[in-house]
């Protein structure tokens, strides 16, 4: 009986939390399916209207920006490329850095690791001038490479992988050695499959991190062709329902990534199964 009561209370609390998170998004979504005129006269809406296709297709394909050079669709593409690039490169660099630090007899490996870790204290915003100078000297302004490279190494991901590798028993490496593996094969046949869930978790974190970038793309791009979704959010001057539609669409890519990697992601966060 007490079990039943506590379960009811738990569900009640969870439901409230869920409502607090979902209702505002729902209101934005519902409102985005009405015409701007209707919202201006009747306020925010809780029920769906019938302008869904009209509003969303207009927003996706409308030429916007200061010089009307870019559509929302292109911004989504840009953001997707940037976020995927950052997530992929972060996973690769941090996997390999952690592998080097844990499995090779690197002198001062611990100190090197802490130096990497300390870079957490130096966010991109703080090193934005030097980063920009380096990128512009490399002629990477207004390129995807310029958007991606300076944020494609993650100290926190290196930290995660390092801790995980340290928890792998040495005997596994020794058994693999006796089975005739070399260091590259051990990395590919063992460490990557074993850290699959961790890779998914890091990928999602870094994807969302990359997707949310605002200041760096703002500085790195002078051409509207490289605008990202977050920059677009700032400069959406359309009608109210257009802006709502844009907001709703801007949430879709991270959500899709999470849906696809959810199972691995949860296992990755709670690694000690």
């Amino acid at each position, binding site marked *: 009986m007490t079990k039943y009561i506590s379960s009811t209370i738990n569900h009640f609390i969870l439901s409230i939390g869920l409502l607090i998170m979902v209702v505002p998004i729902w209101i934005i979504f519902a409102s985005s399916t009405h015409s701007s005129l209707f919202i201006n006269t009747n306020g925010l809406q809780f029920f769906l209207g019938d302008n869904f296709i009209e509003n969303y297709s207009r927003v996706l394909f409308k030429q916007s920006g200061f010089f009307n050079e870019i559509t929302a669709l292109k911004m989504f593409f840009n953001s997707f490329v940037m976020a995927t690039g950052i997530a992929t490169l972060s996973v690769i660099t941090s996997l390999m850095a952690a592998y080097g630090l844990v499995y090779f007899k690197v002198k001062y490996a611990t100190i090197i690791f802490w130096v990497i870790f300390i870079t957490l204290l130096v966010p991109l915003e703080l090193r934005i001038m030097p980063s920009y100078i380096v990128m512009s000297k490399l002629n990477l302004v207004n390129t995807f490479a310029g958007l991606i490279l300076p944020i494609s190494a993650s100290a926190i991901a290196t930290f995660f992988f390092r801790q995980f590798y340290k928890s792998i*028993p040495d005997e596994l490496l*020794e*058994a*693999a*050695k*006796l*089975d*005739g593996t*070399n260091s590259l094969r051990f990395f590919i046949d063992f460490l990557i499959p*074993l850290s699959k869930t961790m890779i998914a978790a890091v990928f999602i974190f870094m994807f969302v991190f990359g997707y949310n970038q605002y200041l760096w793309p703002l500085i790195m791009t002078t051409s509207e062709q490289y605008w990202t979704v977050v920059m677009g959010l700032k400069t959406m001057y359309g009608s109210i329902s257009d802006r709502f539609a844009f907001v709703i669409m801007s949430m879709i890519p991270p959500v899709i990534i999470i849906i696809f990697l959810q199972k691995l992601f949860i296992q990755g966060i709670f690694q000690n199964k």
Partner: protein
Amino acid sequence: MSFLELQNITKIYPNGTKAVNETSLNIENGEFVVFVGPSGCGKSTLLRMIAGLEDITNGEISLDGNVINNIDPSERDVAMVFQNYALYPHMSVFNNMAYGLKNRGISKEEINNKVNDVAKLLEIDQLLTRKPSMLSGGQRQRVAMGRAIVRNPKIFLFDEPLSNLDAKLRNQMRLEIKRLQRQMGVTSIFVTHDQTEAMTLGDRIVVINNGVVEQVGTPKEIYSKPNTKFVAEFIGSPQMNLFNCKIENGIAHIADIKINLNNSKNIEDASLGIRPDDILISDNGQHTCVANLVEYLGSDMIIYSKIGDQEFSCKLSSKIDLNAGDTFKFDISSTLVHLFDNTTGLRV
């Protein structure tokens, strides 16, 4: 020249600990050798040096005529069964066993045949598609052995592989390992701290203490003629009784008891050892003692008693009626005692 030769092997860890000291050993092809000793005595280090998992500070190891000091473990053609099995958690049982073969570039068909054959031999052919996490301790043990056997290596190395199993399974696996080794005739080295395992498994036993080989011999030699006081104490269960005594003209004085050793030795500080089951208890024995404690083990019982302030135990058939507090008479025969000089620890 022997199949595996260790010459003056020394291992000093970077922190200065000397794990193995000037050890030399010859092992013949097909032999089953057991390294036994207390934990931290260097037996595992020695095994790992043969496998190539530890650097050798000094000395030379040769296998089948080739010096292997600087050969990578992957090219030594040795297989090892680890204490915690070290199965590959993300691979199926089949792939666990096939991995080493794949790395050697053996054809798929041959790998299939070999793995299936070995799986049948070990009765794990039903488990080939499972992951290690879905196996019981005994099954994991079999897979770990299978992984070693399938490669058909020059040497098997076992690093305390039975210590994680419960007592019943341990006895069963012990017999199985012995049977498999006989059947395949592959040179094997087995490391354990359990003297029963050592006695039952080994063709020869190497007793190691503090990084030094104390004695090498067949189980029988080691049991009946221990070279040092350490071996005498370590091998045999219950432990050998060792009495501190003074030997004058072939007579050992233990407290007020005198034992005639039928020789004319004189040792100031000696140990007289006698196995608990070699103490002869009879109604017309020369010496008398009080049984302080009687441990009943079914067919046998162990009596704990004291001569002076030195404790000792005797093992005898539980058919004899003797209870704690009773006095009993016994003899110590000079032919059954082992004498050690306490200053050197060696047999005299």
